[in-house]
């Protein structure tokens, strides 16, 4: 069965304004590190937004770019993939639990679940369909994409897939360093919509083999900054409506090959 990617959304440093981001992904403009500023996922009511963290805001800001007026809020599914979740919350919570008086705020605790971005997104969008939040360590991008593609293939309909990760706070950086935050979201469906960007085909696992690099060489720093950066060559290909294979790191020491066609 054909699985179409009908839209994408990318948020990261230097990738906040959609037109500029599109130009960078098409190779028409150089990428440069630029602070994302305070992201404002404005679909979430202000009272809820105040309680969210930088990680949650990043994922929400990215995924909200995919929603269309015609979407059936009861059936569209979501897949959230992140290797590390919210390490800033882990830092705050474990810091508090190490103290004599172990005081944790209720908001900090409910924000600590890996599916916190998914929960806020469902509140923001009123989407009541299936939602999965997962991790597969360094292979989170490909494993999340596989989950989203198999959802389209087996359950049908439209699936929003968002992959995001955020640098660790100072104390935990020695164990998990990444230079930049990044979020990428994909609107997948079993039907081609107006302005479809491409068809995705899972070619499978290969042992060894080189992973795809960014065509726009200025984006290489971002691709290499964190594991989910491996998705950038895919969003580049979709932005340019290119037909090509994309090879990304997978579980173990393997790589995974996808074909993008039309």
């Amino acid at each position, binding site marked *: 069965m054909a699985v179409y990617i009908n839209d994408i959304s990318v948020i990261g440093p230097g990738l906040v304004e959609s037109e500029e981001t599109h130009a960078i992904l098409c190779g028409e403009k150089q990428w440069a590190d630029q602070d994302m500023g305070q992201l404002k996922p404005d679909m979430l009511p202000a009272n809820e937004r105040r309680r969210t963290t930088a990680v949650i805001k990043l994922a929400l800001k990215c995924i909200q770019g995919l929603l269309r007026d015609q979407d059936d*809020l*009861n059936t569209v*599914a979501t897949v959230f993939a992140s*290797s*590390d*979740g919210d390490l800033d919350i*882990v830092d705050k*919570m*474990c*810091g508090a*639990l*190490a103290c004599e008086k*172990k*005081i*944790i705020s*209720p908001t*900090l*605790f*409910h924000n*600590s*679940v*890996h*599916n*916190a971005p*998914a*929960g*806020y997104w*469902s*509140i923001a969008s*009123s*989407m*009541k*369909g*299936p*939602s*999965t*939040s*997962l*991790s*597969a*360590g360094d*292979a*989170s991008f490909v*494993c*999340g994409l*596989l*989950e989203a593609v*198999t959802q389209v*293939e*087996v*359950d*049908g309909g439209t699936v929003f897939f968002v992959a995001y990760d955020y640098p660790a706070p100072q*104390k935990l950086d*020695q*164990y*998990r360093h990444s230079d930049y935050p990044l979020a990428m979201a994909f609107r997948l469906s079993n039907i081609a919509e107006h302005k479809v960007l491409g068809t995705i085909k*899972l070619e499978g*696992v290969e042992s060894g083999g080189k992973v795809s690099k960014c065509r726009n060489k200025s984006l290489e720093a971002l691709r290499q900054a964190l594991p989910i950066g491996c998705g950038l060559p895919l969003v580049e290909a979709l932005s340019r409506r290119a037909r090509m294979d994309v090879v990304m790191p997978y*579980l*173990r020491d393997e790589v995974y090959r996808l074909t993008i066609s039309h």
Partner: protein
Amino acid sequence: MKIMQPLAITAKTMVNACGKGSAKTLDALIRNQSGLSQQQFAGVDFDTWIGEVKGVENLSLEPELAHFSCRNNLLARMALDTDNFRESVDEAVAHYGAERVGLFVGTSTSGGAETEKAYEYALQHAGVFPDNYQLMNSQNLASLQNYVEQSLGLRGPGHTISTACSSSSKVFSAAYRHIVSGQCDAAVVGGVDSLCLTALYGFNSLQLISNQICRPYDENRNGINIGEAAGFILLEAAELGHGKVKFKGYGESSDAYHMSTPHPDGDGAVKAMNDAISRSGLDTKAIEYINLHGTATRNNDAAEALGLLRVFGDSAYCSSTKGFIGHTLGAAGITEAIISILALEKNILPGNVNLQKIDPQIGIQPLIETIDYSVENVMSNNFGFGGSNSSLVFGW
């Protein structure tokens, strides 16, 4: 909604506060004997009951996998080494090839207790973390998946689902989709969560922890008891599982309501239950027992009961088994799925242990004690923070 091709449950294993192995849990269910204890978990300064697995701290991982050492992975190993589960997986690997057996696991806090200990150590050692602390092999959610994959010698697709208390219920649908779409031929699904301060103090901050033994659906219920557990199931094509219980349906939904409170009318629960029934192709009446999420918080039980009435009326048998083992969070889905399968296999319907007086406000009648009764199809419900709902159907 497309009717699902059933998958066979060809092996299963579990450890929890009732003991090591399915037989121990079954025995506790039959005797209506809770495994919860009033014993304190190290470092906790409030009164509650917990569902602790005894002897975890005396275990070790395989020497070549020692870098994955944390309570969560020790619990995982304890389950993998029980009920001949490892031998069954070895047979599946020999039959399908390691590349064709997937692995889908759920956890909410993974090996986060290691990070808690590292911060405590750092506080006493000028901010320096212990030498043996490894965030990626403990705290990171994929630690469980990576450990189990290597321990079982699997090389198929997989991931770690972390949707709070529905985590290891949702592994069934993920495995099903990967099998049907041809990514693998069989799959190990499971879930592990272990006692940690984050869960205990976190739920306490929301005033959801009971200072008594938890009493789901009781008039006087006042919160949960945290438990720890591990469970795994091997899923294979139904034709290979002659005489085995089948996984027949799944339904997943989001509440779109609140981060830590279920929709008061049980809307999300209703959608999950209805979708699971639709995919099973069964008539609602054909599902005769529902293992409830039944956490024993005021809100969960009231909302779930309302949802149950909307789907089943007041006719189906139902109970929450959290009074036996506590709320095992990311392991609740797999644990209660296995309890539901045991009910089918052993012709019992589990009681709602610790229940003294059914809350008259909620309109359903959970079984107070375990009964001998044979049914063809059952449902297991799990609902999590963030409004994440999952319902599963199992049957012959």
